[in-house]
Every structure is written in structure tokens, then in C-alpha cells.
């Protein structure tokens, strides 16, 4: 435990509109397992992308085994002995398991790929993970858990001295996790430096030696031995609760009649027996681990996915939502997507056009013609109300910061006069100040009479904002808890809910998980 296998010093990375990393340090020693923690958007993935040559840091340096490096592509990082399992799937669906594992180093004979040798080597690495699958099967036939393990096998096959694992356990089961952990400990014994990124603190405390925590693109702590920390202190570092989830004023809840109700709803996405009630003025949190089916439920509600059974009521009236247009114009249901770049906004269009997209159908009389001025008049009050910081309404949203982009994606639903608003991960990748603003906004909207469904994976945010927390797992609702606003208590109860379902439902890593495949 002497030399730094990997050393990142004062790394800074700026994207148009947001400073993703500022002066971040990270030191990885040979023969240790080092945890990298932080909330969504804290900069973990950006840091990993710098270390693996996907991004170049704007400032700061990276060195491997004591010598400074300047990666200009992922190939450089690979050549320097850095193996990585990215958070996103990076498999080629139609290629076989073996091809995916060996893709960086295909064995050849007479300059042609030697399939026998390739399969043999792949099988060896699958074996290291106790994984008994045919290396000749195309990966799109595997379950999500198996795919994740194949990615890990690929990283192992590179026999890197530095191994980065970004959320490797997100979709695999207890048994597989145990095998993986045993293997990581073995690699550590062999002197490999391992970086382990996870949201699951239990795993971190079980496995890791030291911890680096990022918060809003900065080091909340760097390389602290695990013995010096406990869960509470880690969470405090991650959310910086004293300043982050501090004062957003008081909640003046006045909860009215049932505005929105699902009775025994099932969907084509795989939901079963979903019962959900949201009252006027209420903020209902929808919590669940990744893959629990929360966003999919939201999409079914707004008509973007098919509802196959059960009944939907809006203000007591039986509602059939045919498509998104129907949801918006007839039933006044809006959905602020979790993925504002892919699903929420049209980045190369202006603030005005992005906000007005939901109201164009109301503009224009003769031949449906309308002017820029009419469009502006229709939306400017909402842009101002949300305090969108932009030089002008004509600015392309691509040039705004993440927080302001998020405000625009909320503004368009306000402009549409949505009365039922599903807000999906509203503060991912957003700086602390804007976060507080958006938190207050969720309450304000409820207090002005909207019924709000809040989806967030950030438990602290959930406990802060929701009046009631509905817990989902495997496309079912498994709990309905009144919020006590006590973080420790609520997190214990929510996790208890999910854990209990473990026993009752059993390990259902089958049907719903395959949806992603």
C-alpha cells in the first residue's frame, strides 16, 4: 500500500452551462478498494470519464503508476492498464457473449478470428464470476443482471492493474454480488487498485478500504479511511445537508379531494395491480430502486405506454388516456421527464419554443398562423415565474445551465395548465442553489392546487418534499407511508419495505428485468 496506482489532482471539467468538476482529487493505491460516492450529478461519472479518456480535463492532471498521462481516447486509458465497467450498458447487442468480452483483444489465427480460442478465454473469465452461460449466445438474449456480469467479465479479461466499477451491483442479485465481492477481494490481494462506485452504502462499508466523496463537482472528502466514517457522516458529506437540504420554508399543505386515482392498473410495461391516489394539493413521492418501474408507470399514466387493465380516474371521472396529447389537453396531466436532454427539451430550439411547445395548439386563429410575439405573450409569465436565467427568450436551451434547463422543462407544463404533474428526478445534475429553488417550487405548485407525483431516487429529497411516500418494487406498489420528515426513521421504513418485499415476492429477477434487454 505505498505507490499511487492512479492519481488525479485538481481535475476541473466545464461543460457549456455547468461546471461538472472543480479541483477534484482522487488517489487510488495498489491493493485497495476505494469507494467513490456522491449523489446523482455530483460528478462521479464525469470523473470516471476523465480517468478513462472519454473526456479531457480542462485543468488538473492524471497520473498512472507515478507517471503523468494525457489520454485523448478510451484506447489510451486501456493501453495504460485501466479497465472499466461503465454505468451505462456498453455491450454490442447482437454480438456473442465471447465477442463482447474479448472485443479489445480478439485472439487470431492467420489474421482471422480464432473463435474456439475466443470462447475458451471468455469462458475462463465467466467462470471467475461463477457465471455459467454459453459464450456463443448473443448478449441481447441475456437478462439485465447477466449483461452486467458480462461487462464485469470483460473488464476482468483485460487483467488491468486499475479497475473502475461504476455501479456494478445496480441490477444484480445478492448471490451474484457475493461472488463479485469475493473476486474483488482476491484481486485486491493480488495488488489491483479498485475504484468502486455505488449508491448502496452497506456495500461500501462491507467492501471498501477508503472513501472519496464528491458533492456538486467538488471533493466533500478525499481518501478517508472507512474506519473514520459511519453511515451518517457519509450521508452528511454526500448531501451536505446543513446547506443543501436546508431551509426551503414551510409547507402549507391543504389537501383537497382526490384528483387522480389508479385502481388495479396494469400496463404493457409489466405493472400489476397498481392502486394510487393523489389528492389536490398533495405531493406523493414514488420511491423505488432503479428498475422498479416508476418512470414507466408515469409514462403509462400520460398515455406514452399502454395501460392494459384497471381504471384511471381524474377528478372522479373515469378517464381513458389515449395518447400524450389526450393526457395534456383533456386531462391536464403533465410529465417532467427524468431525462431532460433526451426527453424533456429540444436543445437546439429556443427557450420560447421549448416552453410554448405545449401551447401552440391554442395559438393562432386564421389558418392556425401565429407570430413570435403571440408565442412570447403566452409563455413569458411562466418563464419569469420560474426565474429562468437566460439572456433572452430566443436563447437556445442548450446554452443554459442544467438548473435553468430544468426550469424550462417545468415551465412548459405550467404553461400547459397541467393540474396533475408527474415530476421525475427533478434535481439530477443540478447545483445546490437551484435545487433548493426547485424543491420550493414543487411545494408551491402543490399549494396552488396541483396534484403532484414526485419520483426521485434521492431519499433525502423524498423525505424532505413528499407528504406521503409510495414504495415500488418490480412494477408493483409495496408500501404506502405517511412522511414523518425524519430522515433516519423514514429511510429505515422505506428500506424495510423494499427488504420485506424481498422475502415475500422472492427474487424476481425474471420478467420485468428482461424488459430492458
Amino acid at each position: 500500500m505505498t505507490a499511487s496506482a492512479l492519481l488525479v489532482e485538481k481535475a476541473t471539467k466545464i461543460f457549456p452551462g455547468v461546471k461538472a468538476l472543480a479541483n477534484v482529487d482522487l488517489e487510488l493505491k495498489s491493493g485497495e478498494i476505494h469507494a467513490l460516492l456522491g449523489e446523482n450529478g455530483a460528478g462521479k461519472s464525469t470523473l470516471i470519464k476523465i480517468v478513462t479518456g472519454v473526456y479531457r480535463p480542462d485543468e488538473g492532471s492524471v497520473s498512472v503508476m507515478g507517471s503523468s498521462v494525457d489520454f485523448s481516447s478510451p484506447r489510451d486509458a486501456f493501453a495504460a492498464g485501466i479497465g472499466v465497467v461503465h454505468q451505462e450498458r456498453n455491450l454490442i447487442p447482437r454480438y456473442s457473449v465471447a465477442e463482447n468480452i474479448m472485443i479489445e483483444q480478439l485472439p487470431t489465427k492467420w489474421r482471422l478470428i480464432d473463435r474456439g480460442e475466443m470462447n475458451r478465454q471468455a469462458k475462463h473469465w465467466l467462470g471467475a464470476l461463477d457465471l455459467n452461460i454459453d459464450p456463443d449466445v448473443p448478449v441481447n438474449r441475456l437478462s439485465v443482471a447477466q449483461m452486467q456480469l458480462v461487462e464485469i467479465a470483460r473488464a476482468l479479461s483485460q487483467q488491468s492493474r486499475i479497475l473502475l466499477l461504476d455501479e456494478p451491483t445496480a441490477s444484480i442479485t445478492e448471490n451474484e454480488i457475493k461472488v463479485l465481492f469475493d473476486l474483488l477481494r482476491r484481486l485486491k490481494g493480488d495488488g489491483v487498485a479498485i475504484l468502486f462506485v455505488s449508491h448502496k452504502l452497506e456495500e461500501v462499508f462491507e467492501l471498501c478500504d477508503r472513501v472519496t466523496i464528491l458533492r456538486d463537482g467538488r471533493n466533500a472528502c478525499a481518501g478517508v479511511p472507512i474506519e473514520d466514517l459511519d453511515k451518517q457522516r457519509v450521508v452528511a458529506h454526500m448531501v451536505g445537508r446543513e446547506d443543501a437540504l436546508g431551509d426551503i420554508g414551510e409547507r402549507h399543505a391543504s389537501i383537497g379531494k382526490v384528483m387522480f386515482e389508479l385502481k388495479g392498473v396494469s400496463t404493457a410495461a409489466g405493472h400489476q395491480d397498481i392502486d394510487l391516489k393523489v389528492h389536490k394539493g398533495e405531493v406523493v413521492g414514488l420511491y423505488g430502486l432503479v428498475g422498479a418501474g416508476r418512470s414507466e408507470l408515469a409514462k403509462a399514466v400520460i398515455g406514452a405506454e399502454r395501460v392494459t387493465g384497471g381504471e384511471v380516474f381524474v377528478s372522479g371521472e373515469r378517464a381513458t388516456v389515449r395518447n400524450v396529447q389526450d393526457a395534456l389537453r383533456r386531462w391536464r396531466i403533465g410529465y417532467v421527464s427524468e431525462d431532460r436532454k433526451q426527453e424533456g427539451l429540444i436543445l437546439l430550439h429556443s427557450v420560447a419554443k421549448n416552453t410554448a411547445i405545449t401551447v401552440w395548439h391554442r395559438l393562432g386563429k386564421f389558418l392556425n398562423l401565429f407570430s413570435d410575439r403571440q408565442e412570447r405573450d403566452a409563455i413569458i409569465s411562466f418563464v419569469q415565474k420560474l426565474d429562468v436565467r437566460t439572456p433572452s427568450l430566443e436563447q437556445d436551451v442548450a446554452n443554459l445551465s442544467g438548473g435553468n434547463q430544468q426550469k424550462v422543462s417545468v415551465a412548459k407544463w405550467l404553461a400547459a395548465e397541467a393540474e396533475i404533474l408527474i415530476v421525475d428526478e427533478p434535481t439530477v445534475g443540478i447545483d445546490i442553489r437551484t435545487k433548493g429553488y426547485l424543491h420550493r417550487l414543487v411545494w408551491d405548485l402543490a399549494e396552488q392546487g396541483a396534484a403532484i407525483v414526485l419520483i426521485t431516487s434521492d431519499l433525502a429529497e423524498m423525505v424532505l418534499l413528499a407528504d406521503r411516500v409510495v414504495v415500488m418494487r418490480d412494477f408493483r406498489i409495496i408500501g404506502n407511508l405517511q412522511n414523518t420528515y425524519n430522515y433516519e426513521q423514514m429511510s429505515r421504513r422505506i428500506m424495510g419495505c423494499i427488504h420485506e418485499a424481498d422475502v415475500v415476492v422472492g427474487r424476481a429477477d425474471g420478467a420485468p428485468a428482461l424488459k430492458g434487454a
Partner: protein
Amino acid sequence: MTWSHVSRYLIRAEWAPLAGITLFSIVALSLIAPAFLTEYNLFVMLRILSVTSVFALAQMVVIAVGQMNLAVGAIGGLVAILFGGMMEVYGVPVPLAMLIGAAVGILTGWLNGAIIAYSGINGFVVTLAMLSVYTGLNYGITESIPFYNMPQVLLDTYDGKIGPVPNILVIPLVAAALVGLFLFRTRAGRYILATGGNPSAAALSGISIRRSVILAHTVSGALAGFAGMVAVARLGTAEPTIGVDWLLPSFAAPVIGGAILSGGRVSVIGTMVAVVLIVLLENGLLLARTDPYYVQFFLGVLILAAVMFNRWRAVSAEKVTAARENAS
């Protein structure tokens, strides 16, 4: 709007550098080649412009929705020979023939869009196949023999003038104005641009992607068909080969004009200025007695240069924004 407003708008417009180059070319050509500014030469260019501008707009509308229409030329050719054939063989009066021609353009465009929207097959592949289908119909009907006898009234109207102003000046101006109004000032047009800009976001905002795609292709078909009929009036014959050489310029003009091929951003003015530039290029090379076989070569160079320039501008704009963020 004061003059300073106007001038600021002109300078900041995306197509400003392009317009500058075009103006420069006009000045340069008139200085170098005395034949350039003659009434005859200008009229020749305008005749080419009347066709090119319309099929460039036809392509542009489909680019706006994020797709390509490889069949613009095929639709133009099919409508052209039907238009000419109706008039020559059945003596259909010009206005009625135009209406029927327009209907065929709309129908073929709609068919392209409907196949793409309902099958989910890539628009490139569908319009490639339809290119062959429509061309095949064209050759089947004509057996590659043109219709030679076009009504005199058509040709007279095409080449006529009101005072000093040639009638055909109206074609690019009106077509551009209508397409501009449609894309930027109507719901349906905005839906098309939004769909091109980000289909998932558009769909989750209540826009029917299917409808946008079909509409864009329908409008494109209508314009392509109209371009075919203008070409008949220009040539004085309905030739089966009308449209075979449209593909390259139809993409070149919108792209040089600043369109993003993935959709969501097009410029009507930019496209029209680019059409003028392309026509100038051909005309200039002709006046300079360059081997006409090299026109394609120079057109290719022009496209590359324009696209690289646009790319350079986008990147440097991004750098400026990043630097500003950095400073703040």
C-alpha cells in the same frame, strides 16, 4: 423597426456570411464577365432558379423533420410527365392539369410519409425504394419518350413579364414565403420542427410524431411535384428525365443554408441564398468557359466548404459560451 434594427438583424442572421459570399460573387462575376449582367443571362439564371428553389424547399421540409427524401426528383419527374401527358394526349387545360399534378405530388409524398410512419422503417430506405417505384412508373408510362407539344399559353405565361418583372420571379419568392409561414408560423410546422429537433421530447409534449412525419413528406411531395411542372414549362417539353439530377442540389442548398441534417433546424432564407449561390456557381463556370463536366466537382467543393464553415462557427460559438460560463 428602424434601420439599425434591420442592420443588426442582418448581421446576426445565420445566413449573413452566406449572403455576403453570394453578393461578393455577383459583384466579382459582373466585373470579370461582361456577359454576366446582361438581361439575357440573368433571365437564364432565373429560369434555373425557378425549378431549383422549389425542389430545394421540398427537401428542406423533410430535413426539418429529421429525415431525407431521396425521391424528390422521382416525384418531380413523375408529376412532370403526367402533367405534360395530360395536356398533350387528352388536351386537359393547363389549370386543371396543374391541379391534378399537384394532387399526384401530394399523394406520392403522403405515401412516402405513411409508409415510413406506419412501418417504422428508416426514411432513407423507404424513399430510396420509392425513388425507384416512381421512376419506374415514369419510364413505364413514357417509354422514355418525351411529350413535346406543350400548350403555348403555359410557355408564354412562364416566360412572360409584368412590366419589367419576369413572371417566374414570383415562383421562388412565393414558394419560400409559404414554406416559411408554414414551418415557423403554424402549429403543424412547429410540430414538424419539434419532431426533428427531438422526437422523444416532442412525443412526451403531446405531439404526434407520426402525423408530423407524414405531413412533412406530403408537403415535400407537393413541392417536388410543383417543381416538376415548373420544369416542364421551362423546358417546353415533358421529359422523363426531369428530376434525375435534382438529388445533389436538393441536399446542397438546405445544408449550405445552415440546416442540420438530424432535423429541427432549417433556414428558408439560407436555403434560398444557397440556391442562388449554386446557380451563380454553375453560371460563373459556364461564363468562364470551364468544362461543364466539372460543375459537379465545384459544387461538391462548395458544399464541403460551406459545411466546414458552419461547423467552425458552431464550435467557436460553443467555446465563447463556455468561456463566458467560466468567467462568471
